[in-house]
């Protein structure tokens, strides 16, 4: 259902993205999913990691500004139309998506969609009513 996401402020300078990933790697924290929203001057790096609490602490210690928040994970079959079906429901129900990103696993043939909604509770209700499975764990990602 909800999974913990870490958001980092990253300046557009060479090496900053690498520094964040290296800090996590050194603590053996795995990145399960990520997205980078960027502007001319800075970006927001959003991460789902294997151990969110340790990840948060590690990145903070490495000098990054980090905020944690919950995002909704939705699992779909990894086939054409998997995402489109969900977006149809959201569109019909007028549920606003703030942002989203997706990852698929070749091994399991499943995909995980990470959603940030304006109103998460309504989104869950509408998706469940439409028979779309909201994940309790990200099985695909192993969190």
């Amino acid at each position, binding site marked *: 259902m909800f999974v913990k*996401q870490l958001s980092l402020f990253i300046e557009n300078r060479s090496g*900053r993205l690498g520094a964040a990933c290296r800090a996590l790697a050194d603590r053996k924290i795995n990145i399960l999913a990520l997205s980078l929203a960027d502007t001319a001057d800075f970006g*927001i790096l959003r991460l789902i990691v294997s151990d969110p609490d340790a990840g948060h602490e590690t990145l903070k210690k490495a000098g990054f*500004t*980090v*905020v944690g928040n919950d995002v909704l994970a939705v699992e779909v079959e990894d086939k054409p139309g998997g995402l489109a079906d969900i977006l149809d429901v959201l569109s019909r129900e007028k549920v606003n998506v*703030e*942002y989203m990103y997706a990852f698929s696993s070749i091994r399991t043939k499943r995909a995980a969609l990470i959603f*940030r909604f304006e109103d998460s509770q309504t989104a869950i209700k509408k998706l469940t009513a439409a028979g779309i499975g909201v994940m309790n764990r990200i099985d695909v990602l192993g969190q």
Partner: protein
Amino acid sequence: MQQMWQPELETLPRPQIEALQLKRIRETVARVHERVPFYKERLDAAGVRPDQINSFGDFRRIPFTVKEDFRRNYPFGLLAVPRREVVRVHASSGTTGKSTVVGYTRKDLEMWSDMVARFLVMAGVTQDSVVQVAFGYGLFTGGFGLHYGAERVGATVVPAASGNTRRHLQLIQDFGTTHVVCTPSYAMHICEVAGEMGLDLIKQTRLRTACLGGEPWSEQMRQRMFSLYGIHGYDNYGLSELIGPGVSGEGPECKGMHIFEDHFYPEIIDPESGEVLPPGSTGELVLTNLTREAQPVLRYRTRDITRLDLATCACGRTMARMARVTGRSDDMLIIRGVNVFPTQIEHAFLEMQGTSPNYQIIVDRQGSIDSLEVKIEITEQMLSDEMKNLHRLESDVQKRLAEALSITPKITLVEPGTLPRSEGKAVRVIDKRPKEA
């Protein structure tokens, strides 16, 4: 000899200037002692009795007035007349949220117009001239000050106000403008935009002269303006605490700006010790109003660094000339002619919840126009996973600073700990603008 607006006063022999100054100093000190509680306290505490000022040496015992005194007496505490006699107020930026307010009686406005007329006439303005004012009209003294001064000379005044360079150039062509009035950097910008548009100012317009004030500039810039565009630039100086523009100005033969000494008494001090320095020394300019009714100021520390030359000028004027202002004895920045104190920015941040106190101000010049960038180190309270929240934060900070500074800065969010610090103290201001002597 040059044209003069008030020739008999502008060429007064020095002994007479000084006798007039001492007489007016005595009158002014007596007036403020009687009418302004702030000055009564100051003078009494310093043991200065108005009836015992018999020399400039006696006058120097009076403590300085500083910008902070205006803030403490905001808005009308320094008035020496009942408020109903004040017919206009202007204001300039203060070091914190409160601005420096100045009041004018009808007679003050007349005097001010005469002072502006003096330097406009030095720059060749006559009844036949068309004077285009490109200063902002408002609380800032530049627009209205120059406007009424040019009207007083009898010139045709075009109150075009600041901004919209292409429209300025259109008016210059259509109205036959002979003089523009603005900051030196804006004059340069007007010239450059004319160049980009393929407009030859000399061949296609009547514009020959720019009357420039509001910010320091260089001799190189004057030469560049003339050699590239054929425009003569003349400097003038003033500050709202004393009157506005019209404290001093120059003409073609003058090396330096004549201070209108029958209305303003200048001193040069060591900014550290406050000691008055001998004639010809470089130091901070201190000015005293000699004739102002509404709000006479005694020994005001301008923070501008300059020096005085008392020799009679090639133009025939006898009044002291001040050299170009070469710097400041405080941290005030002049950006596009607007006074900006780093503390104003700090103050604005303190008023905004959740913003970081770690910031840096970067002043630069793109072409001839100053740019202001404020870098802010991001904190957890400021950060969000949603980009729109960060954009909203940037625009909120930008709006707040634009309100406080009257200048819209570019806001850049940076990672914490990235702004340079020297000896643990943050380096607040980086001025990248070329420094020219």
